[in-house]
C-alpha cells in the first residue's frame, strides 16, 4: 500500500512544453539578428535611429508634394511655407524629360510605340523558353522598324537597309562552305556595295511612303539614353566576340591589332572618346560628309563597350578547359564550326554576368553625352529645365526622377542576369 504511494510511475506522456519565449518566433529572431551581442545591439540602435531620422525628415517632403502647378513660385505658394516637393515639375515637363524639348509633340506616339515594341522584340531573346522562336523574326525586323518610327522619313531607307543585310546573309550562306572568315569579309563587302548603290535610289525618292522626318538634333531626354544604350550594347556584342576571338588568335598580326585596340580603348575615359566624336572624328571623314552627332556618338560608344565586352568574353574563353578545344578538333570541326558549336556557347554562358555588368555600366555612361551638349535626361535637367524661369531651383525632384529611372532599369537588368544565370546553370547543385 505504502509502496504504491511511494513509487511513482508515469502512465501517460506529458504534452510537449512550448520552448521558452526567448527561443522562438520574433524574440528569437531579434536576439539572433539584431541583439546578439552588446556591440550589435548598439549598432542596431544607432542604425535604427538613423533610418528613423531619414524617414521622419523626408516623409513630409513626399506627403506634402505638389503635383499640379505651373511654376516653382506658384508651387511654393501652394505649400505655404510647409516642406514639400514640387513634383509638378515632373508632370509639367514630363514630355521634355522623356523626349527632349524639340521633338514634335504630336509625334510622341512614335518613339513611345518604338519603346513598347522593344519589349516584344526583346522578349524572345531574353525569355527564349517562354516565347515562340518565330518571334525572333520580329526581333530581326525591329531595328529597321524602330529607326523608321523614331527618325521618320521614307520607308524605303530602312527597307533597303534591311535588303542590304539580306544580301550579305545570302552571300555568306553561299560562301561559308569555302571558308567562314572569307565569307564574312565578302558578305560584308557585298552588303556595303548594296547600301552604297541603294543610296542613289533612295536619295531622289525622299517622299515615297514617307512619314514626317525628325532630325537627330531634335531628340533628347531619356529616349536618347535608352537609344544609345540599346543600340550600342547590341552592336558591341558581335564586335566584342570578334575582338575576343582575335585576341585569342594564333595569328600574330591579327592578335596584335586586337590587343592594341582593346588596350587603347580601355585605357582612356569615355569622355575623351566623346570629345573625339564631337570635335575630332569629322577630320577623319571625307570632306563634305556630314555625320549626325548621334551617329558619331554611337560609333564611339560602340567601340568603347566592345573593348570591355571583348575582355569579358576573353575571360570566358580562358575559363573553358583545354579539353573542349581539343574535343572540337578531334571531331574534325573547322575553326568556325568549333567556335560556333562548342566553344562560344559555353564561353558566352560563363561571361553572362560580366556582359550584363558592362551593359549596365554602359547604360549609366550614356549620361556622359550631356557633357558634349547633347540633351539627354541629365542634359535636359541641367539645361532647358533648370535654366527656365519657371523651374529655376527645383533640384531634388528632377535629380530624384532621373535616379528612379536609372535605378529601375539597371536594377531590373541585373536581377534579370541573376535569374538567367540560375536558368543556365547546368551543374546540379
Amino acid at each position, binding site marked *: 500500500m505504502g509502496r504504491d504511494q511511494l513509487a511513482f510511475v508515469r502512465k501517460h506522456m506529458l504534452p510537449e512544453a512550448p520552448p521558452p519565449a526567448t527561443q522562438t518566433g520574433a524574440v528569437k529572431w531579434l536576439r539572433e539578428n539584431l541583439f546578439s551581442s552588446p556591440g550589435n545591439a548598439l549598432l542596431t540602435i544607432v542604425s535604427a535611429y538613423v533610418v528613423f531620422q531619414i524617414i521622419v525628415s523626408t516623409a513630409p517632403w513626399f506627403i506634402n508634394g505638389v503635383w499640379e502647378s505651373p511654376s516653382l513660385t506658384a508651387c511654393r505658394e501652394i505649400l505655404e511655407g510647409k516642406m514639400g516637393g514640387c513634383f509638378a515639375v515632373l508632370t509639367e515637363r514630363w514630355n521634355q524629360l522623356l523626349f527632349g524639348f524639340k521633338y514634335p509633340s504630336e509625334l510622341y506616339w512614335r518613339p513611345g510605340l518604338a519603346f513598347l515594341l522593344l519589349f516584344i522584340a526583346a522578349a524572345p531573346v531574353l525569355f527564349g523558353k517562354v516565347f515562340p522562336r518565330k518571334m525572333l523574326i520580329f526581333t530581326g525586323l525591329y531595328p529597321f522598324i524602330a529607326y523608321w518610327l523614331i527618325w521618320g522619313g521614307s520607308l524605303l531607307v530602312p527597307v533597303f537597309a534591311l535588303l542590304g543585310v539580306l544580301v550579305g546573309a545570302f552571300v555568306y550562306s553561299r560562301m561559308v562552305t569555302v571558308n567562314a572568315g572569307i565569307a564574312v569579309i565578302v558578305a560584308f563587302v557585298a552588303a556595303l556595295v548594296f547600301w552604297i548603290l541603294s543610296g542613289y535610289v533612295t536619295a531622289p525618292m525622299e517622299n515615297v511612303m514617307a512619314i514626317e522626318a525628325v532630325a537627330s538634333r531634335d531628340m533628347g531626354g531619356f529616349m536618347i539614353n535608352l537609344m544609345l544604350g540599346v543600340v550600342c550594347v547590341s552592336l558591341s556584342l558581335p564586335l566584342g566576340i570578334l575582338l575576343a576571338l582575335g585576341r585569342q588568335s594564333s595569328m600574330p*598580326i591579327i592578335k596584335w591589332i586586337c590587343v592594341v585596340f582593346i588596350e587603347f580603348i580601355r585605357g582612356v575615359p569615355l*569622355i575623351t572618346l566623346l570629345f573625339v566624336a564631337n570635335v575630332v572624328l569629322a577630320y577623319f571623314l571625307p570632306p563634305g560628309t556630314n555625320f549626325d552627332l548621334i551617329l558619331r556618338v554611337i560609333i564611339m560608344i560602340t567601340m568603347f563597350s566592345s573593348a570591355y565586352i571583348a575582355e569579358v568574353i576573353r575571360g570566358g574563353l580562358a575559363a573553358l578547359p583545354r579539353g573542349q578545344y581539343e574535343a572540337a578538333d578531334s571531331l574534325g570541326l573547322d575553326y568556325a564550326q568549333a567556335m560556333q558549336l562548342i566553344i562560344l556557347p559555353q564561353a558566352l554562358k560563363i561571361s553572362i554576368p560580366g556582359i550584363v555588368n558592362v551593359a549596365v555600366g554602359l547604360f549609366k555612361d550614356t549620361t556622359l553625352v550631356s557633357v558634349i551638349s547633347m540633351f539627354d535626361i541629365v542634359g535636359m535637367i541641367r539645361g532647358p529645365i533648370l535654366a527656365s524661369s519657371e523651374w529655376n531651383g527645383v533640384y531634388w525632384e528632377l535629380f530624384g526622377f532621373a535616379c528612379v529611372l536609372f535605378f529601375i532599369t539597371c536594377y531590373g537588368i541585373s536581377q534579370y542576369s541573376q535569374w538567367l544565370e540560375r536558368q543556365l546553370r547546368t551543374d546540379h547543385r
Partner: protein
Amino acid sequence: MTTMTDPPKASFQLSMLIYDTRYRSYTFQFIALVLLMLLLGYLGANLVNNLAAQGQNISFGFLSSPANYDINQRPIEYDSQSSHLRAAMVGVLNTLIVAVLGCATATVFGVTAGVLRLSPNWLVRKLMAFYVEIFRNIPVLIWILIIFTVMTAVLPSPNQFRGDGADASMFMDAFAFTNRGVYVPAPVWGPGSLVVVLTFLASIIGVFAYRRYATKLLYDTGRLLPMGWPSLVILFVPTILIYFVLGQPISLNYPALKGFNFDGGLHIRGSLIALWFALAIYTGAFIAENVRAGIQAVSKGQTEAAASLGLRPNRIMNLVILPQALRVIIPPLISQYLNLTKNSSLAIAVGYMDVTGTLGGITLNQTGRAIECVLLLMLFYLTISLAISAIMNVYNNSIKLKER
C-alpha cells in the same frame, strides 16, 4: 611487284593559300594587314585634305603660348600668362589630387560596407545592401551633380555667418561649410616643424622594427611580447615630446569671416568635394562587393582548421582569412582605382579644373587644336592606365599560387 615511291611532291598552288591550313593564316594576316593599311591610309588622307582645306596643320607649338585663362585651384604656381603646357600640368596635378583622395576614401567606404554586409546584424546588413544597390545602379554623373548641388545651392552663403544670431554657424569654430566651398583649419609650418615630421616618420619605422623584433623573438624563443600598446607608444610619444620641446612649431590657421568671405584656413572648393565624394561613394559601392566576394571566397574550412589549431578569432582573421581574401580582393580593387581615375574626367561637368577641364576644355576651345589636345589627353590617361596595369601584373605574378 610494286616499288615504294616517295609520295608525289606537292607543288605549290595558288588555291592552297585558302585551303591549306599551313598557308591560310598567312593569307588572312596579309588581308587583315592590307585592310588596316587601307583604312589608316584613307583616314590619314582625309585628315590631310581636311586640314589643308581649313588651312590648319598639326603642331604642338600652341602649348608654349600664354593660356590667358585662370584656374581656381592651383597646386603649382600659375597665372593667366603661363603657358598652355603649364595649364595642362596644373590640370594633371588636380586630376591626381582628386584621384588619390577619391581612392583613399572609396577604400574606406568600400571595406566598411563590404565587411558590414557580412555582419550578423540583420539591419546593418540590409542597410549596406541598400547602399550598394542604390549607388551602383545610378550613374556617377548624377551623383556628382547631386553633391555639387548640395555644395552650391543648399549650404549657406558666407554672408549668413555674419553677426549674432546668424542663420549659419561654424562647426566647432573651425570648419565653415559655405556655398563657396568648405573652409578647414590649415597647418602652419613654423621653424622646426621639419624635425617633428621627421620624428613622426622615424616612429613609424620604429613601430615596424619593433613588430618585426617581437615576431622574431616569438619564433626563436616562444616569448610573446605585447604588440598593441607599445606600438601606440612608439608611434606617438616621441613626436609629442619633440613637438612640445621645440615649442609647438606647427600651429593651425583657423578660417575667419572677413568682409564678404572667409579668410585663412584651407579652402576646399565645392567642385572638388562634389567630385571627391561622389566618386568615393560610387566606387565604394563597387569595392564593397569586391570585398564581400573576397571574404566569402575563403572557404569555411579554413576558419575551422585555424580554430582547430587553437588560434584566437582575431588571429584567425589576420593570419588565415585576410591573406587569402586579399589575393582575391586586390586585383579588382586596383581596377576600381583605375575606373575612379578615369571617371574623375567627369570633373568637367562641375567645373573642377582637372586635365580634362584645362587641356580638353578651355585650351581646346581657345586654340581650336582639337586633334592635338584630345591626343595629349588620351596619352595622359593611357599612361596612367598602362602603368597601373603593369604594377598589377607584377603583383598578380608575385601572389600567384605556386602550383605544379
